[in-house]
């Protein structure tokens, strides 16, 4: 029962980062948790590098607009917070499983 709770939390939360621009992962609902988490981190990384290039473009004056930069940085920040809360929940679930006495 605890195993299914962990996987259900993992699959439901992996659905939210999958809303980011990325490959359709309809086939991965039964994939191991590690792959789901690494996919989410990959999405965060993509957004983060986009935000960095937007900021660079704004500072060097190559035509990136202020609002584009701000939106890119906000997207990256939100994706990171999402991944962070996924990780926190997973750690909580893991610890509650590990805390079980036999």
């Amino acid at each position, binding site marked *: 029962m605890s195993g299914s709770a962990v996987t259900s939390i993992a699959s439901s939360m992996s659905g939210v980062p999958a809303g980011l621009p990325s490959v*359709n992962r309809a086939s*991965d*609902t039964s994939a191991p948790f590690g792959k789901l988490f690494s996919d989410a981190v990959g999405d965060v990384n993509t957004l983060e590098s986009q935000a960095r290039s937007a900021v660079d473009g704004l500072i060097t004056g190559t035509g990136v607009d202020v*609002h584009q930069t701000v939106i890119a940085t906000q997207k990256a920040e*939100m994706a990171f917070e*999402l991944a962070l809360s996924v990780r*926190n929940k997973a750690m909580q679930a893991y610890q509650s499983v590990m805390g079980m006495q036999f």
Partner: protein
Amino acid sequence: MNLFGLMQTSGSAMQAERVRAEVVAANMANAETTQTASGGPYRRHMVVFAADQGNSGFLNSLNRAAGDLTSPRPINWPSSEPAGWQAPGVHIAAVIEDPAAPLKRYDPGHPDAGPDGYVSYPNINPLTEMVDLMGATRAYGLNGSAVQAEKGMIASALEIAKT
């Protein structure tokens, strides 16, 4: 819809409004320009907005997001949008010139005066341009508020995960 689809739509709208404000500024700057590279006075520029259909059109995306009323849409994690899905948005289709006749003022001493002594000035009304600029500014702020609203929505969704 994509989690960040609203931001992409609003971002494109802010871009379009910025271009509109730029065009208005160019009009105001050239209100008295009688010489241009193509000869004749400066002609007032106007922008044409066009809707970006995204991959499937605004209406289709919204219908799909809202769910089919005849059959209940299954909650399909992850998102059922195909890879490479583009959010709908707005873009500037063209910057066109006003075909209206230029303003004529009598000034035979001017270097650009025609044979009848009239100089052609651009037909730019500063009041019209100012109102247009106000409209562009307001629309820019409007779309900025939409982006902030979505940020708030995502933040409240993340609140659910906190304990």
